[in-house]
């Protein structure tokens, strides 16, 4: 394999390569000191760019409640009319023509519609084809894109060290996360038992000034939005305080449907993945 280009190195460090691609990169890195050196340079570059961007951040405020009163219906141009409206208009038009044509025989609405369905091809053959195409398009667009799922290897590359996990608990999901103040962060979901999943968020801090960090943490819980969501949410502690631990220079927080002291105890058990054997999802 020829040397790994910069774009691929960045994609690798960003956790955006497929597992197969990441393996190919790692195989090359294992036998190419030049590319290993470049990998570290690019890792530093990514961290530095992230720090600079973090400087260009607006003062962080608590999440404001959604101002639904501001909603103004947008102007909609004639070709942007919603599909149901367009269909309704088409049906009305067809009925109108039908009524006009059928008026000589005093037919019922039912009659008009069935009469028109036969001889006029538009209603019968064109419509199903179009709606099928529409459904196919809708299905194609359907998968909601959230934070990119990626592999443990990518997490390792992103964090620059072994991810920290709860020993023995199967990993259900692994995502890259963007957190203000962190140069790199991942979210690891682990299954404790059939009904309990805890979430570990771990990351390396970007080098930031202390007051900025404090401000982020104050604003982070977004209690206002949380409270409006459900009565149960309001019944819980209004500002979720998450235990934080520093493991191998990674800041690790834990959250899950458990009391705070249980979460704190769980957090005490987390350790770098290295020697552990963990079953994948």
């Amino acid at each position, binding site marked *: 394999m020829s040397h790994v*280009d*910069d*774009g*691929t*190195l*960045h*994609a690798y460090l*960003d956790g*955006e390569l497929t597992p197969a691609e990441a393996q190919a990169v790692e195989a090359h890195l294992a036998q190419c000191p030049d590319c290993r050196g470049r990998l570290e340079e*690019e890792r530093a*570059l*990514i961290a*530095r*760019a*992230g720090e*600079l*961007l973090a*400087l*260009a*951040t*607006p*003062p*962080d*405020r608590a*999440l*404001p409640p*959604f*101002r*639904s009163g*501001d*909603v*103004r*219906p*947008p102007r909609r141009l004639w070709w942007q009319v919603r599909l149901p409206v367009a269909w309704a208009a088409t049906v009305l038009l067809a009925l109108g023509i039908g009524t006009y044509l059928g008026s000589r025989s005093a037919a019922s609405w039912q009659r008009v519609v069935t009469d028109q369905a036969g001889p006029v091809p538009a209603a019968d053959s064109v419509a199903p084809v179009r709606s099928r195409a529409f459904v196919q398009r*809708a299905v194609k*667009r*359907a998968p*909601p*894109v*959230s*934070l*990119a799922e990626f592999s443990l290897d990518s997490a390792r590359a992103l964090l620059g060290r072994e991810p920290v996990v709860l020993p023995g608990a199967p990993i259900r999901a692994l995502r890259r*996360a*963007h957190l*203000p103040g962190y140069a790199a962060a991942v979210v690891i979901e682990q299954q404790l038992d059939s009904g309990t999943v805890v979430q570990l968020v771990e990351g390396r801090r970007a080098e930031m*000034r202390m*007051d*900025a960090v404090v401000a982020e943490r104050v604003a982070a819980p*977004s209690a206002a*939005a*949380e409270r*409006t*969501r459900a009565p149960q949410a309001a019944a819980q502690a209004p500002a979720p305080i998450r235990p934080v631990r520093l493991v191998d220079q990674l800041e690790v927080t834990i959250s899950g449907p458990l009391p705070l002291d249980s979460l704190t105890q769980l957090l005490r058990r987390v350790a770098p993945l290295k020697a552990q054997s963990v079953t994948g999802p």
Partner: protein
Amino acid sequence: MSQDLAEVYRTTYRALVRFLYRKVWDAARAEDLAQEAFARAVVHKPDNARGWLFIVAANMARDDARRAARERRHLTLLKAEPQTSESGADDALHVESERTHVRAALEQLSPRDREVLLLWDAGISYEEIAAQTGLARGAVGTTLARARRRLVEAYQAGQRGEHVARG
């Protein structure tokens, strides 16, 4: 607002404000535009709300910049040059000055490089960035590598320039 959109609001609002701020450079304006984008999402109910929000936000920021440029054509756009020579100890001013430097560095990137960098920093995946910018997915890493390098270089050049100017 639907449950889904409420969740998107909770998880995406700040990233959207940050994204907008780096385009309009006015925190209050960025928040207004973000709120407006969510208000439109309530009406449109897009399938992929997160991606949709960033497209709408980018368009709104562009329109906003055009209008701002029209309104103050006679003013210098970048008037907030560093004013820290006397008050280096003042933290607020120091932060402001660094922000100005990063802004100047960002504005030296090509529009596409800048867009890709800001989208990535807002938590958008390569795949979505490719969909939004029209880049091939394989080109996103290369673009990001270049954008990051230029950002750091431009920032360092700005710092050096200032040191030279200060003598």
